[in-house]
């Protein structure tokens, strides 16, 4: 009962900090998912729909990146964006942008691999049909994107789930700066470190509620799209 009270207090109470943390979390996850999808889905279609030399190698490479530990991605981006790193002059370390970059690195391979798998199974039939009606080359991309729009939404949603739940990389490159880069997961970690398990659990449940809400909205969209 106390837990429900504290969740309610967190969400609708007088302290604006949690709402601010939620806003940063959503901003980060939405941008991460957007960019990862913009890169990952076309790349996945190209990889899945075509036969070319080096395809097995490229597929293996994407699958390997799928196993990239978040902390390794975080470390990489940290070293790149640090003032003493090659991209230091952009002043991006400990910003939401840095978190988005690290997450794009993590989620793009995931989205590409899922897309390539999905498209690859049906590629032969679709390609034959498209060639049959005189559509060649890069123009096919549009038809693949249209054809798979419903399952693509699920893939994007899975990417969003990864993004919002990730903690290792965003802690490293975001730095958990209050009012700036503190997101739900790093806030939960901080509260746990301080031994405030109640508060940490309340934050955790809130995170799940938000995920549920986003899923519900997107499923509604998915349904509308497939009913078209």
């Amino acid at each position, binding site marked *: 009962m106390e837990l429900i009270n504290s969740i309610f207090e967190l969400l609708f109470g007088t302290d604006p900090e949690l709402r601010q943390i939620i806003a940063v979390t959503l901003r980060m996850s939405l941008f991460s998912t957007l960019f990862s999808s*913009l890169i990952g889905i076309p790349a996945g279609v*190209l990889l899945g729909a*075509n036969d070319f030399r080096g395809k097995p190698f490229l597929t293996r490479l994407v699958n390997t990146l799928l196993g990239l530990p978040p902390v390794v991605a975080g470390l990489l981006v940290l070293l790149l964006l640090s*003032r*003493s790193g090659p991209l230091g002059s952009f002043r*991006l370390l*400990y910003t939401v*942008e840095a978190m988005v970059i690290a997450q794009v690195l993590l989620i793009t391979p995931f989205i590409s691999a899922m897309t390539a798998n999905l498209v690859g199974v049906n590629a032969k039939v679709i390609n034959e049909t498209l060639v049959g009606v005189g559509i060649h080359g890069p123009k096919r991309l549009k038809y693949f994107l249209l054809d798979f729009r419903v399952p693509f939404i699920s893939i994007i949603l899975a990417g969003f789930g990864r993004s919002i739940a990730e903690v290792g990389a965003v802690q490293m490159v975001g730095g958990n700066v209050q009012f700036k880069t503190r997101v739900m997961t790093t806030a939960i970690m901080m509260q*746990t470190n301080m*031994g405030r398990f109640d508060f940490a659990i309340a934050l955790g449940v809130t995170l799940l509620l938000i995920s549920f809400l986003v899923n519900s909205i997107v499923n509604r969209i998915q349904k509308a799209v497939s009913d078209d």
Partner: protein
Amino acid sequence: MKSNNPRNILILTVISILLLSAVGCAQEPVNKVIRMSTTTSVNDSGLMAYLQPEFEKATGYTLEITSAGTGAAIEKGRMGDADILLVHSKSAEEEFIAEGFEEVRVPFMYNFFVIVGPADDPAGVAGSATAAEAFQKIADTGSLFISRGDDSGTNNKENAIWKSIERDPAGQTWYESVGQGMGQTLTIANEKQAYTLSDKATFLAHDNSLVMHLEETDDMKNTYSMIIVSAKRFAESNVEGAQAFVDWIKTEQARKMIAEYGVAEYGEPLFFNLD
């Protein structure tokens, strides 16, 4: 038609990079932001969150605080990712200074390390005259001790105490080095009902069933210093902003705030001003 594919990938990559850089454009004026790298104790104890709004109101600067163990906190200064450090490890600070990174170093407050452990105090630590004596008792009785093991200020202090009694506990069955921050280390010590060395502020702010058995001995003073990262190493270092913080912390208002912090909640201050 296959020859078009690499070009598509290239175009997509370029578009993505452009989009990414568009997100990165919202920059605040540089000199108004002070990047502060603190040790975990001043952040996890809530002190910085308590001082920050008053400092920002008084000076118009914005503080961006990241916190980590002292070793990692100083490393951020070395990498040019902080303008000012707020740390507590004399040996690590002196190393940093010797490397020529520091503009000014200002010791400004202190508190005490404490030895905490299970309520029944199996090693009989309570009443020891020094931390060294207490560590000797823990080692002699083979009572479980959890070490930070993370090159933090507290960890360095702990190692110095072991060294002073010429014991090397590494690898002993009663000694566990966990490589975690103070909060997690206290959580682990609490779960295992073990002894550990903690700074007093983090211990008081942390929920656990452990008890302070020894505090305020001469060899457990814990001094916090501010170090401004020199612009000679990193031209962009916000020395001016860092100096504004150093000046502000010495004002009557800030000293009063530090001296009062924790009194309402714990019945005693967590930090003391240095004169």
